[in-house]
């Protein structure tokens, strides 16, 4: 039975995105909003807005009971959790199930199994998906040397009992292992009461590459190609693009197959993303985790596949069979997304809430802007600083880069500080243009260069 009334348990641009997709399918929408977002674009677009709680997320967007109660009270037959907030909380999916509300996402047990890092690694291993090569606990420097030889230098030694860098060291050859093992082991024993260490391969040139998947919940999974999200600061993505042009075709085929195998083994339902580290030098990839939800950066995959992933989510949750075949998904061209964050890159990325006095996005072809903002919008201080996603499409990466450069240049935006100057700097930087970056590039090279830029 198709969804007739959808509850949206989220805010900001993703709430707008979901409402738009729902209305296009003739589905009524009810927004569960905090008091702080009562006047926002999503609230104006939704057929009905319910104030579920105060601005404080713990009492509004993070309270699954309040959200499901509101959905029931409004007579909704489905709930979309968006991303962040409650999206990967098994309790929300379970509560929906118990109350006969279709949860637009994976089954609760899938979310649970993938949410736990160790359990997710076991699942990947069982599906034959490669993890970063590593060892079990090692007792001595000699054992460690022998194991490291097998894995290949450089390696990192880590304490089995804990994190935080205690007992951790980097080794580029056996000499480093012999020199540091005993000291690191002592440090680990002092910190955690257990001196055993294990080895993991150190990936010098790593890219963050992820595969967009969509499962019917019965074992059939489609993929929509991969995304490269290597421009990161503190594990927060700033720029995402599709496809990953530095990946050789043979590796790409294996990457897609790995993502599909892992998720189809789980009978994965609805949209998801399998994240990998891509070792550029060795041309190998290693599993990181599965994000059991729609992701921020889904539009770049939508542009290169010309498929509406959010509409597909709603159709599947409404009980429609997944009739699409893998051969129907033809990827073409290149898409880049820059996250527009209300934070000041010149002031340590300090959040900059406030009122947008000017918001004039460029009128451009091959551009898409996902946002809840317009001129006069008040950016509340309680939530994530992302206020929009600027996305462009080109026949190839160069054309997309050129369009992104032009789009940012013509984007007139005042009232709050944003990261657009940094984004503009990155898309024009030779390292980014030539695609010679890694996940550490922004912090090690990009940000220092930006700080020393000449206007």
């Amino acid at each position, binding site marked *: 039975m198709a969804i007739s009334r959808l509850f949206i348990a989220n805010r900001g641009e993703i709430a707008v995105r979901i409402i738009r997709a729902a209305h296009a399918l003739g589905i009524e929408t009810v927004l569960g909003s905090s*008091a702080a977002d009562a006047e926002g674009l999503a609230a104006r677009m939704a057929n009905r807005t319910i*104030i579920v709680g105060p601005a404080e997320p713990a009492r509004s967007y993070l309270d699954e009971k*309040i959200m499901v109660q509101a959905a029931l009270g409004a007579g909704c037959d489905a709930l979309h959790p968006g991303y962040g907030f409650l999206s990967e909380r098994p309790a929300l999916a379970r509560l929906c199930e118990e109350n006969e509300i279709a949860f637009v996402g994976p089954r609760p047990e899938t979310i649970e199994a993938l949410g736990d890092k160790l359990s997710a690694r076991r699942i990947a291993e069982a599906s034959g998906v490669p993890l970063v090569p590593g060892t079990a606990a090692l007792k001595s420097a000699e054992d460690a040397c022998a194991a490291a030889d097998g894995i290949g230098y450089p390696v990192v030694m880590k304490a089995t009992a804990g994190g935080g860098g205690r007992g951790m060291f980097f080794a580029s050859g056996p000499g480093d292992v012999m020199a540091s093992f005993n000291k690191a082991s002592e440090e680990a024993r002092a910190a955690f009461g257990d001196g055993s260490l294990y080895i993991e391969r150190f990936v010098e040139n790593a890219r963050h590459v992820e595969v967009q998947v969509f499962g019917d919940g019965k074992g059939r999974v489609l993929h929509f190609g991969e995304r490269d999200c290597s421009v990161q600061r503190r594990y927060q993505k700033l720029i995402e693009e599709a496809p990953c042009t530095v990946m050789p075709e043979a590796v790409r085929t294996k990457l897609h197959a790995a993502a599909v195998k892992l998720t189809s083994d789980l009978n994965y339902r609805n949209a998801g993303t399998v994240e990998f580290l891509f070792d550029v030098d060795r041309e190998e990839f290693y599993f990181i985790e599965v994000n059991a939800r729609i992701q921020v950066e889904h539009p770049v995959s939508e542009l290169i596949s010309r498929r509406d992933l959010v509409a597909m989510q709603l159709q599947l949750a409404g009980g429609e069979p997944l009739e699409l075949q893998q051969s129907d998904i033809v990827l073409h061209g290149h898409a880049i997304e820059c996250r527009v964050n209300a934070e000041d890159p010149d002031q340590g990325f300090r959040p900059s809430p406030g009122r947008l006095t000017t918001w004039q996005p460029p009128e451009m072809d091959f551009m898409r802007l996902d946002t809840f903002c317009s001129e006069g919008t008040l950016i509340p201080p309680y939530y994530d600083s992302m206020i929009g996603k600027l996305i462009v499409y080109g026949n190839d990466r160069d054309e997309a880069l050129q369009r992104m450069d032009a789009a940012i240049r013509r984007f007139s935006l005042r009232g709050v500080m944003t990261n657009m100057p940094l984004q503009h700097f990155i898309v024009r930087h030779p390292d980014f243009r030539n695609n010679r970056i890694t996940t550490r590039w922004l912090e090690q090279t990009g940000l220092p260069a930006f700080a020393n830029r000449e206007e």
Partner: protein
Amino acid sequence: MKNVTADEIKNLIQIFDDSDWRELALQVEDFRIFLSRDPDSAGAPWQTPPAPAAVPGPVSPPPAPASRAPAKAADAPVAQASADATPVPDNCVVVKAPNLGIFYRSPKPGSPPYVELGAEVNEETEICLIEVMKLFTPVHAGIRGTIRHICVEDGDMVEHDQPLFYVEPAE
């Protein structure tokens, strides 16, 4: 009649607006809507006429704004739920919902309400229950005074900060 759409309701209100009718009452299966221009309306034909206020006070019975549908929220279309539109008399304070949930006037089904119009309450008096997913939390009056108006029907969903009661503070 689960599939009344917002557009259908809008159309209905538009027709009513454009007409010279004083009131419109419509019932189709379990869907009911009542529209009135009359602030002194006796209410929908299926409603029992409002009892005279137990204590004569400055609060008049709530007028029925045109957009207010008496049906329960779950069956109502997704037109914006209207908050109770009774103006707060100057001498009353509003007790608001501490969180979203289902509003209950009685401690359990079938038992008498916590408070009736005209009831004397103090800070600690429990005046209703709010249910969130089978968790029932009592709401306290928070003030000493007299209940002058009850804004919500028993069993209705209330939103965060929605007015529940008007209380006239004691001297």
